């Protein structure tokens, strides 16, 4: 039954919508972790999701580096090494001064391992977390389980944070595991050429522990907002792809800058990224409302 709303009713509706979004109770972290744990449990059950994502991580962290570094350091194809060595000349002086190893194979392997594969550490977690995050809220709505959450005592902020954690963990864990495997591969293949195990370098530790997490958080805060607002998981994934792509490019360039730059550069970059992440997360909390979980909010 369609009726035209009076101005009074329209005002009331708007204020009602605001009330939907405003929950002032303190955060219950137990419930937040419950939401996160349940989402992760479902993800583990979804082989159709984690198998491709594991392959993606393996491809970037293990297979490509292993083949390239092994080819350069062990097979010693002179032409290939010569060509890659030429590209090292375009590295900034600060980076070139850090190169270790006496032989061209050693220097080339070191440069590839430390500088040129850096973006991998950004692309993999952002891709995985974006894929998880895009489906997380709209998925509840599509499966009808949003109704259960909307009627539950869990606060909208707890649900948002739970979803955020559940989206962040797969990407970050994949990166942590991949990073470990990558470190072993690098040390085993390039280490002997440069005088022993050398990886991870200080810059890589900073990038993994200080720079990457805020970029993940920024990306996910945007993706979760989209997931709360769109009509379907497919739409969420398309839209989040558009959002995350530029972010991946920014993160890519920032990661490169972290590794090439002076010691204070990565700390500053990370600090700025954290500030943006905190702001973006605090704004993103508002995107989860009960009416959105139910799929009755205007615009859905």
């Amino acid at each position: 039954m369609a009726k035209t709303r009076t101005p009074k009713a329209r005002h009331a509706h708007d204020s009602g919508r605001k009330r939907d979004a405003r929950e002032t109770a303190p955060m219950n972290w137990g419930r937040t972790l419950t939401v996160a744990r349940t989402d992760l449990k479902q993800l583990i059950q979804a082989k159709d999701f984690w198998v491709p994502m594991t392959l993606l991580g393996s491809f970037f962290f293990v297979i490509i580096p292993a083949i390239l570094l092994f080819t350069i350091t062990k097979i010693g194809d002179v032409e290939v090494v010569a060509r890659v060595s030429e590209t090292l000349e375009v590295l900034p002086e600060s980076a070139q001064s850090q190169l270790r190893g006496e032989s061209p194979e050693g220097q080339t392997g070191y440069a590839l391992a430390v500088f040129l594969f850096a973006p991998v550490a950004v692309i993999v977690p952002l891709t995985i977390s974006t894929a998880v995050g895009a489906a997380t809220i709209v998925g509840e709505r599509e499966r009808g389980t949003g109704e259960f959450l909307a009627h539950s005592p869990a606060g909208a902020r707890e649900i948002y944070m739970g979803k955020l954690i559940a989206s962040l963990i797969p990407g970050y864990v994949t990166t942590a595991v991949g990073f470990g495997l990558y470190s072993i591969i690098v040390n085993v293949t390039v280490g002997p050429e440069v005088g022993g195990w050398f990886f991870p370098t200080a810059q890589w530790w900073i990038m993994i522990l200080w720079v990457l997490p805020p970029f993940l958080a920024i990306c996910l805060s945007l993706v979760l907002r989209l997931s709360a607002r769109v009509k379907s998981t497919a739409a969420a994934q398309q839209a989040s792809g558009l959002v995350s792509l530029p972010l991946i490019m920014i993160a890519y360039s920032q990661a490169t800058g972290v590794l090439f730059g002076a010691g204070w550069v990565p700390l500053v970059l990370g600090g700025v990224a954290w500030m943006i992440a905190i702001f973006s997360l605090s704004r993103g909390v508002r995107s989860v409302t009960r009416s959105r979980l139910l799929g009755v909010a205007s615009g859905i």
Partner: protein
Amino acid sequence: MDRELIVDVAGVSRWFGDVQALTNLTIEVPKGSITVLLGPNGAGKTTAIRMITGALAPDEGTARVFGLDPATADGEDVRRRCGVVSAKPSLYDRLSGWDNLRYAAELYGLGRRDAANDRIREAAQVFGIDAALDHQVGGYSTGMKTRLALARSILHDPELLLLDEPTSGLDPESAVAVLELIRDMTGDGRTVLMCTHLLLEAEGLADEVVVMQHGTSLLSGQPGELSKRYWPTPVVHISATNGADLDLLGQEAGVEALERANDSARLEVDTLDRVPELLASLTNRGVRVTSVVPFNPTLEDLYFAVRREQGSSGDEIPPPGGSTGRPSRELTTSGAPGRN
């Protein structure tokens, strides 16, 4: 008579965009009762439940549950004291039955201790789903899912159960079993508010009914009292081999109204004790009576009487008079858009 109200919805309206889903809705649910929201699809029943838990806030009017406003910070307290079964079971198909119940147990504050596990097993046993708890819910039948959703709704021992078409999609045997379980649940003082568009389902279960249409309540109260309001005098249907002979009854004492159609007549009498006298009179005049059926109004009769009074349009509304034995109808007239 003062009744303790668990739910007191007064003059609530709610819009979705420019569509008004609820219009000045009033619902009162007394403590310890089974109150049935009765209405066709689109009547606003589901939206009403969402207002009661605070999942949605009213645009106008007030909703009080346990004396609290669920649309405010008190909503968490209200939701913790409610158990909800929505029209779709709202279960996580990729998780096992156990994990679904555990998720609810943790969200409702039962924690992860042994006591919570015991409570999960107990609730599952009540609804006969305990043997399937280790299986993934995606493989459950509709009946099993409904039972699991019901088990989930009582895990935290809620004071108020909100059941939105709880037998939807169930076979008749399962539906009857579920309705019996619902009846049992009120035995220990729980209050139940149930939505349905199946009149047969509400019959015999409802202590109170609220007839809804187009987002508003047309009528509410106890079925017996409401029937008296619509049929203040007893009604009897009498049939004879020659229907015209029944016109004689119009002259008899105690007959307040007579409507004849073909071989039968519908009589309103001052008391049912009058019926033997009337039959004796007919027999003495040589009338061969073939059937005498007192009319006991059902919820279905009541519902359609209300609809007729409101001048509802839509699907065909059965004629008045309560033809006993008529199969219960599913209410199909749609009002506001949406599932409800």
